[in-house]
């Protein structure tokens, strides 16, 4: 990752108790770059889903694994990356009424962000979330 003035990152232990900290991290950044309350909410849900998936499926050693979140602001868009150490979960439809399905995370990300890219490698999964800043 090429560093620039806007680049920030945080590394958290893979523990669901850290979800709130992940949300707080992106909330501060998104607010700083001028996203409105509704957009900040969308970004918080998307990062929450990405980090939840990373905790549940991308952490073969549980809390011993780490999750890195990077944030960058380029070309009027916030780009977030959630980087874990495991394999991602298959998606189901966001409005699937089956209550036993817990895989609504990816559809939530797709519905709330402009671009979602999932890149799986042998060493882990990176979820890239992009939200454009719509002014006015």
């Amino acid at each position, binding site marked *: 990752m090429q560093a620039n003035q806007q680049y920030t990152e945080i590394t958290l232990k893979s523990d669901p108790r850290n979800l709130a900290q992940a949300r707080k991290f992106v909330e501060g950044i998104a607010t700083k770059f001028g996203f409105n309350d509704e957009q900040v909410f969308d970004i918080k849900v998307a990062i929450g889903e990405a980090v939840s998936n990373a905790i549940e499926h991308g952490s073969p050693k549980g809390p011993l694994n780490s999750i890195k979140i990077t944030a960058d602001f380029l070309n009027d868009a916030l780009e977030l990356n959630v980087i874990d150490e495991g394999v991602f979960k298959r998606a189901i439809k966001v409005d699937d009424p089956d209550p036993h399905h817990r895989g*609504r995370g990816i559809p939530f990300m797709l519905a709330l962000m402009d671009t979602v890219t999932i890149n799986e490698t042998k060493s882990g999964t990176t979820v890239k979330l992009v939200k454009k800043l719509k002014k006015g």
Partner: protein
Amino acid sequence: MEVNVYEGLPVVEAAGEIDHWRAPELEQKINEVIEKGNNKIIVDFSNLTYIDSGGISVLFLQLQKLKSLKGRLIVITGNKNIIKILSLVKITQQEGFSLCSDKEKVKQSL
């Protein structure tokens, strides 16, 4: 999370944020209310500012239980972000589910 009573119905009050970490607490509170013989339950999200797919899955699960008991799940929220998430998953279109903007609207819908 507290459980209160409004118009004779149990009200599970869930404030703040419900994520994958807190969702099991919501599931347990609603379970306790169902186990006491209730089939109509109000979940008060008036002071809720965040919900993710963990919380949504709990609502779908409990709605299914209440429907099998010929009951109803009534959610209170006026928060446009929470309403957007509920609408996105189309739980608002499910039989047995009601969305009310405040407690007074619940009274009218009973």
